[in-house]
């Protein structure tokens, strides 16, 4: 995903109702039930640099994706070996964020997982 984070209080849906899918114990994905377009990601618990007060809107759904730019890459532990980025931006693994790791562990425990 390529996403831009907005304050949850600043962003409102002006038409329609996104459908939510809980893609992990700590995150929902929102999409259009009619056409399937992926619209946003939203954390359910604080993760350090994000949380329920933020909404991560998929850049491709903006009317003007060219008007924003990305600041970093995350989740690079799963980056496909044949994908190349030459942009010099910071790159992090998900487990570089201890609060994120703890949030996942806590949610797993609550669900009775291992």
């Amino acid at each position, binding site marked *: *995903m*390529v*996403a831009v984070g907005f304050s949850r209080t600043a962003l409102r849906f002006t038409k329609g109702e996104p*459908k939510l*899918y809980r*893609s992990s114990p700590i995150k929902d*994905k*929102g*999409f*259009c*039930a*009619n*056409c*399937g*377009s*992926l*619209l*946003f990601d939203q954390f359910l618990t604080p993760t350090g640099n994000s949380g329920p007060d933020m909404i991560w809107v*998929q*850049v*491709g*759904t903006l009317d003007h*994706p*060219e008007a924003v*730019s*990305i600041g970093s890459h995350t989740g690079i532990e799963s980056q*496909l*070996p*044949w*994908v*190349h*980025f*030459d*942009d010099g931006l910071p790159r992090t693994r998900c487990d570089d964020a201890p609060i994120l790791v703890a949030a996942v562990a806590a949610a797993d425990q609550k669900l009775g997982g291992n």
Partner: protein
Amino acid sequence: MGDITLPITGGCLCGAIRYESSAPPNWVVCCHCRICQQAHGGLYGLGLEFPGEAFRYTKGEVTYYQTTPWAKRGFCANCGSSVDMWYVDDPEPIVWIGTLDRPEDWPLERHVGIESKVPWHVIGDDLPQRRTDVSKHVEAAKAQDFYSARESSRLGR
């Protein structure tokens, strides 16, 4: 690519939809077109085309949305994962690489839809870059509309 195990398998995020192909893909592309950006929410769609006769769904029901008169895109109604795309005049499905069980097996071969690439996205490889020309599919869609009302109603099946 190394050794490839057939069939090639994949499915959506929640597992409701599963597919397989008994043959390797015809080609692998990164498509920067505006519809790929909107459907996937990102900067592009990474797709490969399987031979039509080799590909089948083994589980679940794909929900289709007709994005243009000449193409439709399929997704999982439960988790929203984009799964495939079909041109009206082409029996070979384009499947999104991220849904493969082993996406790492199929490296990109070229960029298409380059006319819609977001300017600040820097492509970090030396692969060929092409504009997308859908005129063949547009003409096919028009012909189907013109010659057969029954055919045209099938476009959105």
